[in-house]
């Protein structure tokens, strides 16, 4: 057993982080917020060139021949950076939908009763007839509701959607923990950094514990690919992201409640992701059913 990042995996993670900082730093995030809701095509192609969508395709088909662990690492970075767009759907379409692998085609899919980025996508997978827009809670994720919303057992395998979404949640969890700790070290009240108050310090420590536990679960699920591991990882990652973002908001005080601060964007995105792949309830049922598996 060597359950840690290899040199190559570390390098991939760092390179992805640098790429995203270059193409989607703080200013680009603000611009995306103020601009119309469409994916930045230049950024999308840059991601394509870097192999973000194609990395799991075999080399013979233009990919990098890498596996789920590497995919999880780059999606974690995307989550950290709040990168908008139907990233998971496009990644999963690589090799099946022309242009997806290179980032030339933006692909979305119908997931339960919702479709993200419907108007801006080049290709929609699934039946989106009769879709109506809703006023999305997340300013960076346009949403449509679809009436057909198929029952769970008729849906295609959502395992990879759930896993890559959990990786994005993990990125959010890590990022909001960092933001909270930074703020707790810098902001002073009563003559000292607010992080010197245990009530604040312990909130931050709790965020770290949830993040690191989720990290172990998400990475392990990427290694095994096991559907129960994946369901478990999503539960941990959703919790780490959503509770982390809320606690981060709390640590930021009034500043956290402003549109100006990036904290609310993390929380809103984390909430959007909790609805993907059948939602939390379905994952809980998957793990629960497994508890009885040996006794049937």
């Amino acid at each position, binding site marked *: *057993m*060597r*359950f*840690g*990042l*290899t040199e190559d*995996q570390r390098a991939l993670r760092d390179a992805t982080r640098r790429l995203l900082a270059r193409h989607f730093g703080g200013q680009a995030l603000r611009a995306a917020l103020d601009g119309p809701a469409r994916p930045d095509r230049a950024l999308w192609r840059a991601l394509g060139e870097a192999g973000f969508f194609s990395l799991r395709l075999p080399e013979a088909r233009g990919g990098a021949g890498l596996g789920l*662990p590497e995919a999880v690492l780059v999606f974690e970075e995307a989550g950290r950076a709040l990168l908008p767009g139907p990233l998971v759907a496009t990644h999963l379409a690589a090799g099946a939908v022309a242009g997806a692998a290179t980032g030339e085609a933006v692909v979305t899919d119908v997931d339960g009763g919702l479709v993200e980025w419907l108007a801006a996508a080049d290709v929609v997978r699934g039946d989106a007839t009769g879709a109506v827009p809703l006023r999305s809670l997340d300013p960076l994720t346009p949403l449509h509701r679809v009436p057909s919303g198929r029952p769970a057992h008729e849906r295609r395998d959502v395992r990879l959607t759930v896993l890559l979404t959990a990786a994005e949640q993990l990125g959010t969890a890590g990022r909001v*923990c960092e933001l909270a*700790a930074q703020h*707790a*070290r810098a902001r002073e009240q009563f003559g*000292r*950094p607010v*992080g*010197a*108050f*245990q009530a*604040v*310090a*312990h909130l*931050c*420590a*709790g965020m*770290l*514990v949830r993040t*690191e*536990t*989720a*990290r*172990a*679960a998400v*990475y*392990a699920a*990427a*290694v*095994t690919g096991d559907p*129960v*591991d994946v*369901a*478990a*990882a999503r*539960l*941990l990652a959703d919790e780490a992201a959503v509770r982390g973002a809320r606690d981060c908001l709390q640590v930021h005080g009034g500043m956290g409640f402003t549109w100006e601060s990036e904290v609310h964007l993390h929380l809103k995105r984390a909430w959007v992701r909790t609805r993907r792949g059948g939602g939390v*309830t379905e*994952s*809980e*049922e*998957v*793990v*629960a*059913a*497994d*508890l*009885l598996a*040996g*006794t049937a």
Partner: protein
Amino acid sequence: MDLSDTPEEEEFRARLRAWLAAVLPGLPPKPPPDDWPARRAYDLGWQHRLHDAGYAGVHWDASPAIRLIFLEETEKAGAPYVGANFVGLLHAGPTIAAEGTAEQRARWLPPILRGEEVWCQGFSEPEAGSDLAALRTRARREGDTYVVTGSKLWTSHAEVADWCELLVRTDPEAPRHRGITWLALPMDTPGITVRPLRTLAGSAEFAEVFLDEVRVPVANRVGDENDGWRVTMVTLSFERGTAFAGEVVACRRVLTELAAAARGNGRWDDPALRRRLGRLGAEFRALWRLVQWNVSAAGTSGGVPGAGGSVFKLRYSHARQELYDAAADVLGDDCLDLDRPWTLDRLSSLSYTIAAGTSQIQHGIIAERILGLPKGR
């Protein structure tokens, strides 16, 4: 990221499994929880068997990954716990191995490994719990002897121990952390009184230990005089490292038993309960992965588990309490019956967020050492 066994690990696992399968059916029945002499004999007997089969020192000299396989396989097979060997194998032993002289290692380590001597840990005192450095038990030097007076509290297994790893204050004038010394105290020395304390679970797991002019040879000191704090920190990180890893495996088994019981009594049909058990299933899966992650990190940095152990300890101790709360929901009215399987476990689990550093202390360690927040008081 690789979760599979190396050929060496695979071989170790297979050999251990085969040995467990051969030896466990022949074990004597477990003694009742309150019969301490019988428990001591049982726990030592198990350690003795481990020793004869070549597994005695797995906590000390094996790689972290091998240690984890040992904990996983023994737990899965339903082998006895370390029990009364806990302090010897996981605190005092590793400390002596790391800090003791060749002579001290030769005197104390083999009997621990062979399952002949029981150690207890005399650290906490009435006025020194979380704030361990506030300890006051005094040791006055008289030639080649320390004369020790004071009292220790919550000393687990004190009643049946042969030795106590004892922290004493040798220099009351020095800054708190610099006046402490680590001594090996033979428990049959005159001047020691052990008063068993009853826990909320009804059993006498730990004791109060009074020390009145107890004479300890200077040769029993491990590390330098007044250097005991540093010596002690080596043991504490062992305690929070892999010490609880096997219990995660046990919790996963309990959870499957709970699910089966819930199906048996119809409560499984309640989606809220089912989902709660599902969440716990995810929790213990993740905790196991976290152990593997920490162990792999310890393997590469070559060291003792650090603040990562606090992350695990904190999360695990709460998860274990939630597990038995869920068990109570499955049991219904039976959760009030001490003769039902999980009722006592629920009571015992209440100590997990207190012993080996409280949850509040773990939060503080994480905030300061991992997140770099200012020290709070």
